[in-house]
C-alpha cells in the first residue's frame, strides 16, 4: 500500500516545528523584534497561493471573483514581504558593536 502524500507533508511540518523550536531558542533576546518582523516577511510566502489564484482566470475574463481575491492577496502579501524585509534590514543595520579604537 502506498503512503498518502499528505503524510509526507505532515512529516515535513512536524520536523519543521522542531527545527523552528531549536532555531528560535538560539535567537538572542536583543533581536526578538527583528525576529518578529522577519517572520512576518517570510510567512508572506503565502503569496505563491495568491499568484496561482490571480493567474487562474482565462484570457476572456482575467477578473472573476476568485482571481480578484487572488490579486488582493498578492498586494497584501507584497506589503508584508517588502515592508517586513526592509524594516528588518533597517533595524539590523542599527545594531553596532562598541568601537574599540577610542
Amino acid at each position, binding site marked *: 500500500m502506498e503512503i498518502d502524500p*499528505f503524510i509526507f507533508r505532515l512529516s515535513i*511540518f512536524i520536523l519543521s516545528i522542531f527545527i*523552528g*523550536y531549536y*532555531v*528560535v531558542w538560539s*535567537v538572542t*533576546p*536583543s*533581536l*526578538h*523584534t*527583528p*525576529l*518578529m*518582523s*522577519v*517572520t512576518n*516577511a*517570510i*510567512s508572506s*510566502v*503565502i*503569496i505563491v*497561493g*495568491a*499568484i*496561482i*489564484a490571480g*493567474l*487562474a482566470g482565462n484570457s476572456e475574463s*482575467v*477578473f472573476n471573483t*476568485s*482571481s480578484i*481575491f*487572488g*490579486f*488582493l492577496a*498578492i*498586494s*497584501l*502579501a*507584497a*506589503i*508584508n*514581504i*517588502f*515592508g*517586513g*524585509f*526592509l524594516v*528588518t*534590514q533597517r533595524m*539590523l*543595520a*542599527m545594531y*553596532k*558593536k562598541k*568601537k574599540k579604537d577610542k
Partner: protein
Amino acid sequence: MISVNLSAIFYLISGVLFILALRGLSSPETSRQGNLFGIIGMIIAITVTFLSIGNFQSGFIFVLIFLLIGGLIGAFVAYKIPMTAMPELVAGFHSLVGLAAVFVAISAFLNPEAFNLGTPGNIKLGSLIEMSIGAAVGAITFSGSIIAFLKLQGIMSGAPITFKGQHPLNALILISIIILIYLLCASQSPNFFWLLLAVSFLIGFLLIIPIGGADMPVVISMLNSYSGWAAAGIGFTLENTALIITGALVGSSGAILSYIMCKGMNRSFFNVILGGFGATEQSANSSSKEQRPVKSGNAEDAAFLMKNASSVIIVPGYGMAVAQAQHALREMVDTLKKNDIKVSYAIHPVAGRMPGHMNVLLAEANVPYDEVFELEEINNDFANADVAFVIGANDVTNPVAKTDPQSPIYGMPVLDVEKCKSVLFVKRSLSPGYAGIDNDLFYKENTLMLFADAKKMTEDITKNL
C-alpha cells in the same frame, strides 16, 4: 513551464533559506546575512511559482501591478516608520498575513480547479479541512491583530474590556467553529464557508479585547504564532513545502516568544489570554501607602550623584519609548563615559510593548549592543553599581515581587535595582504601574525620585554633568 518535481525542489530550497534566515538572528553579526537569505528564499519561491504556471498571457500583467502596488506601500512604510512604532507595525503586518491567508482560501474555495483540489461543490475532503482551518486561523489573526493595532496605536483604550459571560461565549464560538468546519465538509455548501469566516473574525475580536495594553508583548507574540499556523494550513492546501516549512517556523517562533513573555511576567499563558489584568482591586492598599515620605530631587542632584559614581546601570522601560528619550539618554551616557564612568544597560524581558522593543530603540540611538544586557546577565551587578538610573520602567523593578507573597506580581523576575548604592527614578508622578500596585522602591532610603518628562530630565542632567 517547469515540472512539478523541479518546482517542489525549489520550494524546498526556499524553505531551507528561511530556516537560515532565522538562524542568522542568533547574533547581530550574522543577522544581516540571515535577512539576505530570507530575501533570496522569497525571490526563488515567487519566480518558481511564475515558471510553474507558465500562463503569461492573461493575468500576468495584473499580477505584476498588484505586486508592485503592495511592494511600494510596504517599502514606503518600512522606511518611514519610527522605531518607537514597531509594535504597531508588527501588529499591522500580522493582520495582513491573516487577511492574505483568508483571501487565498476564498480563491481556492471558489476556484478549486486552479489549485488541483477538485471542482466547486466537490472539493477533496482533506483539502477542504486544511483550507477551512487556514481560513479560520487567518481570520482570527486578522481581527485580533486589528484590535491589537488599535490598542497599541491608542485609538482604542488599552484598558481590558470585560463583560459578563465572556468566557462561556468565547468557548461557545470556538465550538461552533469546529461544528461549522464539520458541516462545511459534509455539505460543501458555500454558506457554511462564509459563516465560518464571519464567526472566526468575531472570535479574533473577542479574544483580544479583554487583554490589557501592558500584556501586548504576549498578544503580539501570540498573533505572530497564529499567522504562522494560518500560513501552514494554506501550505497544506496548496501542497507547498515552502509554505508548510515557513508556517511551522513562524508558528513555533511566536509560541516561544509568548512563553518567554509570560515567564517574564510570571503569569501563565491562560491567565493572560483570559485577560482582565490591571482591572483588579488594589486601590485600598495603595491609598494607605500614598502617605509615605519620598525623596525627590532635580537634575542637578542627579548629575552630582552620577558624576561621583564609578559605575551606572540604566534601566529603560516603556516610558522611555513614549517620551522618545533614547537619543537624549545616549547623549547623557556619552558624557558619563567621558568622565570614565562605566555604563551598562539592563533590559527586562517584558520592558516595552513587544519582545526586544528596548533593544531596538537603544540600537537606534547608537548604543552598542555589547553594552546592553538581559536580566540574568546583569542582575548580580546591581549590588556593585553606584547608581541605577530607572527611566520609564516601573513594575519590573518592584522589590515587592520578591518579598510579598500577597502581591499580584509576586514571583515575577525583577531587576535588583534596590541593591544599588543609590537609585535615580525618572517618572512623571507617583502613580502605580500597569499592575496597579505601588512600587516600594519609591520610598527606599537610597532612592531619589526625579519627577519630570523622561526626555527633558535626561537632557537637563546632561547639561549639569
